[in-house]
């Protein structure tokens, strides 16, 4: 009896001791890790898959590497409001530790003032630079080739269309813009709305204006225009781009009510067959639409070529979403360690969430057919999309968005659009870009 009691007491002491020891080891491991709290400022909301990719990586880092690592996320989902607040942070000199920022004058100026981490050098130091897709990095590089931004993901934008309508009217997916406009005319004649567009979002209108100069010359036109080196009418293809949007608007090829339609409502309208064609990314396809793709009900086609210039190979806008930058002032050893962890796990967690990775490594498993089909196209892309809504000086960015919306409603004609763009650049770009230099 006594022996049993002694044994029980010894066992209890042993267990208690082991628990205490384990606790001590755990506490000492936790104590060994540096305390780090970071602030993240983002345009992504919970509706964006890459928001969850970030969330997964942050939690994984906390669980696997540093339990003393913590973060807070400030989300501003509206694009314009997001940019306005970012500018407020810049003016206040109080930048978050990690933040999204477009590749344009804002990021160039911050980098020149030494306020951003040189991402290119960091990626080379961790031997990951060449693992990134060339098109993705191209989208993020500044004019001088330097890289201060890193990708949110790999995104493509395509035209989607309802095959039943195309088949019914004897149409084929257009390869040139003339064919595209003809398709719209035929669809309209048959009583359907040709294009679903998010007319409330200025970037959607600007896409139509910028498609033609982009497929023929990448960023050549916008990079010359933004400083006033050329006038709008000096580029024949750019003029065609302006005329294209006006043609689509004045012939009423956009769906009813598009003027006040946001991006999500636009995709819903297309999903409900309210219009035959729409322009958005494959990541935004719902499961129901992915199934419709597999059943052959909807299809996609890349950005059409300019007639007579069909040989150009650049016709799938690939970008990295709104880019990310890191505050140089808060880039200490711990933040550097987190960034390396992020880069080395980005592909794994992107694939786990069913989205493309900006790195050319590994192969996704269990991707829906549509995502795999688009990926085949994307892997050939070496040149990134050049967006206009972040390249110009801040005033002209605002003006171009307003003009784009007016042109998409045929409230102004192409001449007014081009005159106003030239006027805004003449008034604002000179001072802005000379200051930047």
């Amino acid at each position, binding site marked *: 009896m006594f022996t049993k009691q002694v044994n029980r007491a010894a066992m209890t002491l042993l267990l208690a001791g082991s628990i205490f020891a384990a606790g001590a080891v755990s506490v000492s491991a936790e104590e060994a890790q540096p305390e780090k709290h970071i602030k993240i400022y983002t345009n992504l909301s919970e509706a964006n898959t890459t928001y969850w990719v970030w969330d997964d990586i942050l939690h994984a880092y906390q669980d696997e590497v540093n339990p003393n690592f913590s973060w807070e996320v400030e989300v501003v989902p509206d694009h*314009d409001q997001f940019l306005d607040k970012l*500018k407020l942070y810049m003016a206040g000199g109080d930048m978050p530790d990690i933040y999204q920022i477009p590749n344009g004058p804002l990021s160039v100026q911050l980098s020149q003032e030494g306020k951003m981490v040189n991402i290119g050098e960091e990626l080379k130091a961790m031997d990951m630079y060449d693992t990134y897709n060339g098109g993705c990095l191209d989208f993020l590089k500044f004019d001088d080739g330097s890289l201060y931004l890193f990708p949110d993901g790999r995104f493509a934008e395509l035209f989607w269309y309802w095959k039943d309508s195309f088949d019914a009217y004897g149409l084929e997916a257009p390869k040139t813009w003339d064919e595209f406009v003809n398709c719209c005319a035929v669809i309209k004649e048959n009583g359907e709305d040709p294009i679903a567009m998010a007319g409330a979002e200025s970037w959607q209108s600007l896409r139509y204006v910028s498609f033609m100069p982009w497929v023929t010359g990448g960023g050549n036109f916008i990079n010359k225009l933004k400083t006033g080196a050329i006038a709008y009418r000096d580029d024949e293809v750019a003029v065609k781009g302006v005329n294209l949007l006006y043609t689509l608007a004045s012939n009423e090829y956009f769906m009813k009510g598009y003027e*006040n339609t946001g991006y999500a409502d636009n995709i819903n309208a297309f999903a409900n067959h309210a219009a035959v064609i729409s322009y958005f990314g494959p990541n935004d396809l719902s499961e129901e639409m992915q199934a419709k793709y597999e059943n052959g009900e909807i299809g996609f086609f890349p950005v059409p070529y300019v007639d007579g210039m069909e040989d150009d190979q650049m016709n799938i806008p690939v970008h990295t979403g709104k880019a990310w930058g890191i505050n140089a002032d808060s880039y200490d050893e711990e933040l550097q360690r987190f960034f390396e962890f992020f880069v080395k796990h980005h592909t794994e967690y992107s694939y786990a969430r069913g989205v493309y990775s900006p790195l050319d490594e590994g192969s996704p498993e269990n991707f829906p057919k549509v995502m795999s089909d688009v990926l085949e196209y994307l892997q050939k892309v070496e040149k990134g999309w050049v967006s206009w809504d972040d390249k110009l000086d801040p005033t002209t960015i605002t003006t171009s968005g*307003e003009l784009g919306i*007016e042109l998409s409603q045929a409230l102004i004609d192409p001449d007014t659009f081009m005159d106003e763009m030239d006027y805004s650049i003449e008034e604002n770009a000179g001072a802005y870009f000379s*200051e930047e230099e």
Partner: protein
Amino acid sequence: MKLGKHQWQTVLLFTCPALLIYTLIVFVPIIWSSVYSIFDWNGIGSMKFVGFTNYLKLFTRDREFLPAFRHTIIYTAAQIALQVFVGLALAFLLSSLPKLRTFFQTMYYVPVVISSVALCQIFEKLMSLQPLGLFNSILGKINPAWYDIKWLTDVRLCLGSAAFVEGYKYMGMYMVIFYAALLGVPDELVEAAKIDGASSWDIAIHVKIPYIRNVIVANCVLVLNGSLRAYDIPYLLTNNGPGNSAQLLAPYMYKQAFSSMKYGYGSAVAVMIVIISLVFATVFRRIFERED
């Protein structure tokens, strides 16, 4: 009446805290904005002194300032009509109700307590075309052409739509103020008018309205100042409208300062808003004080 030392101390004791807070949150920012307005600054680099160039540009080369000013005047007139005069009419209707006054008073006051963002979301859906909103669904039944009314994106309608929503939101508040003022009209005056053979309309026009005239003027000044600085509802509903057809002065100031990153120029617009508000309020009061 002359105040003694102790009375002065009491006056200062009660007025100084409020004056101090008012100075900090109103006068200091105005002075600060005035200083910024004579500089050219993009918020990142160094500030460059430009004197009164920003003000000169505002009146000579700015294509948006004067249209924004015109829209603001129209918007303000609409607000005075909706908030003050419709509010007053509702207060009369409310005071003539024999029953359920509290119920209707609460119902009309509900929009005042709903946040502007939520209210704009509601009206955006009601006035929407894609998907078809309630307004057009009902109007379309009367006349099929009305299915397609673009309340928020037609350059001729969007300013009016925003003005309607703002007026709808606040008319309940002014209704409550007027209702309280109407309850203060002495019964003897109304009874005397009735004995003289005045109708309900006569009593309202010749007895009650003159009696609450000061309340009406004070409410007009409040609405005037609020509308000259209006921002949230027109911006949230129309995003300044296509072609800036619904752009008011305050959103224009915000656009210049924070979207275009012209903090100096935006401050010049802000100073102009202060001056315009002061001028309008002073002129308005002077006119009515003189009539008194």
